[in-house]
């Protein structure tokens, strides 16, 4: 359980994190979402006691991080900037961290195996690719078998196989009842991994809701239907709470019904469908909509248009 209350961080005049309050629950993957520069990394550093909050508190399992007796066995952290000395081997890096808690060599070898770095454990971390660096970061996060994980942009720099590996890892960690808090600036990534989302922009809380709630808030599901009998299906689908629009012949965009429901109506009327696709762009749109004003270095729309 992670709890932030009124968390604020100022650098001179600039407010990086602005009165942020949220709760991260165990047992699910919670996404921490926001555009670059929204204050996600700063918030995570505040949670870990690396930076001192200007105001407010950050508690992990009811205590400030700095008061944890065995922090590595309570919280595992992966920070965006690589936190590894480039001149040290992966194994020595993990052994040095493990030594602070009296964690043994066997556990170090186990986490190296787990993240797939056993074969390069003796190599200097400076020569690692971004993906290998991320895996080493995850190995150090898992070192103390912690109940809470705080991961800053873990899929950054990973190849598709690595991204899939992270997704499965995060889900299985959450399924074991752990608290998993993962930041990303990619809505699509979070939509695939997270159950709950905390959305920030310019350091402020924009949304704290489940993925399902956010999708619903963005106007519900949309289903794309292509059929030669578009006009007939349009009339059959039209009902309260359902809107059907058409941008071209044969094509309908249906919102308010699931693809299963649309398919059932079509089958009952004997209408052959050429295409039936649930549209997932709405979540991305929801995010864009939520953070539009909060994009710090965004390109003004007029400039894009000209």
């Amino acid at each position, binding site marked *: 359980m992670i709890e932030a209350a009124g968390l604020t961080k100022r650098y001179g005049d600039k407010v990086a994190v602005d009165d942020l309050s949220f709760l991260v629950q165990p047992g699910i993957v919670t996404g921490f979402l926001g555009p670059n520069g929204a204050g996600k990394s700063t918030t995570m*550093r505040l949670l*870990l*006691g*690396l*930076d*001192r909050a200007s105001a407010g508190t950050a508690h992990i399992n009811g205590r400030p*991080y*700095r008061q*944890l*007796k*065995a*922090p*590595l*066995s309570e*919280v595992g*952290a992966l*920070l965006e*900037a*690589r*936190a*590894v*000395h*480039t*001149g*040290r*081997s992966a194994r*020595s*890096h993990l*052994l*040095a*961290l493990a*030594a*602070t*808690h*009296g*964690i*043994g060599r066997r*556990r170090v070898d*186990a986490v190296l*195996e*787990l993240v*797939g770095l056993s074969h390069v454990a003796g190599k200097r971390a400076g020569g690692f690719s971004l993906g290998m660096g991320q895996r080493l970061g995850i190995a*150090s996060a*898992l070192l*103390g*078998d912690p109940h809470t994980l705080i991961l800053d942009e873990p899929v950054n720099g990973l190849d598709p196989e690595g991204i899939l*590996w992270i997704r*499965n*890892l995060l889900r*299985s*960690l959450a399924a*074991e009842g752990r608290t998993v808090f993962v930041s990303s600036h990619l809505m699509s990534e979070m939509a695939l991994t997270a159950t709950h989302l905390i959305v920030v922009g310019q350091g402020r809380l924009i949304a704290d809701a489940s993925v399902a709630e956010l999708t619903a808030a963005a106007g519900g599901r949309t289903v794309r239907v292509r059929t030669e009998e578009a006009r007939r299906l349009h009339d059959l689908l039209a009902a309260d709470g359902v809107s059907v629009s058409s941008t071209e012949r044969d094509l309908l965009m249906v919102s308010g019904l699931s693809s299963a429901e649309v398919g059932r109506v079509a089958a009952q009327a004997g209408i052959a469908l050429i295409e039936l696709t649930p549209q997932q762009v709405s979540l991305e749109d929801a995010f864009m909509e939520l953070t539009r004003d909060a994009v710090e270095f965004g390109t003004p729309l007029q400039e894009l248009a000209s």
Partner: protein
Amino acid sequence: MTTVTVETPAPVLQVTQARAAKSEWIKLRSLRSTWWSILIVLLISIGLGILFSDLRGRDMAQHGVLVTDPTQLSLRGFYLAQLAVGVLGVLLITGEYSTGMIRASLSAVPTRLPVWAGKIVVLAMFIFVITLAAAFVAFLGGQAVLSHYHATLVLSPKSGLLVGPLSGPTHALGVSLSHPGSLRAVFGAALYMTGVALLGLGCGFMLRNTGAAIATVFGLLLVLPLLAQALPNSMQQHVTKFLPLLAGTAGMITTGGTNQLSPWTGLGVFGLYVAAALGIGLVVLRRRDA
């Protein structure tokens, strides 16, 4: 696809000062730069000590006059070796800031004090043991070389130097460890080296930047005495001996140089500089964001 294995690690996982120190020892010994620095320290301190002893010994034998402290002569190499030792001390902490390792270190030990104390203990013991061994070798080697040369002037047991008659029996220039002050000077060299390493560490903690910390350490050690030469003579005498270099090396000589503090007073004054740097470093470490 790998699954997460929930292995139960050994019980009572907890950060302790001893464990933090062990972690620092693993960090220190697992960097190649550490061993390169040590190699340089050994080569310079021993090699130059023997080289200087030979050059000056030959010169003094030709003139038949002993003009310098043989103990200090064989330990001269440490004046150069201090560069490598100071840089090693600086890098022990600034290397963590430049690579981001510091965030991993401080996440593991969030109270931060054990990281600071662990680095001090490990670095001090490491440098002291190695430079003490180097100092013994440099001294014994240098004196062995000096013993090949002879002059008519003999050493006084008290001051180390004696202006004696130019005629008379000749004596070997080399001295033994039992010569007054020599054993202390060997330990003094190791203590000074340890202090320089810790001064580097303190400045590194304070400034968190390799270049700035190295410039500060050697500015304090090597540039301050040069600046002091600009002072009027009357002031110079009182100021110079309290500067870190002159105070710290007071323990490396046996002749009781006229313008230096007594050995243990000098080392004590030098210790104060080191303690100040480490103290400010601790405040910075505890207060500032990582």
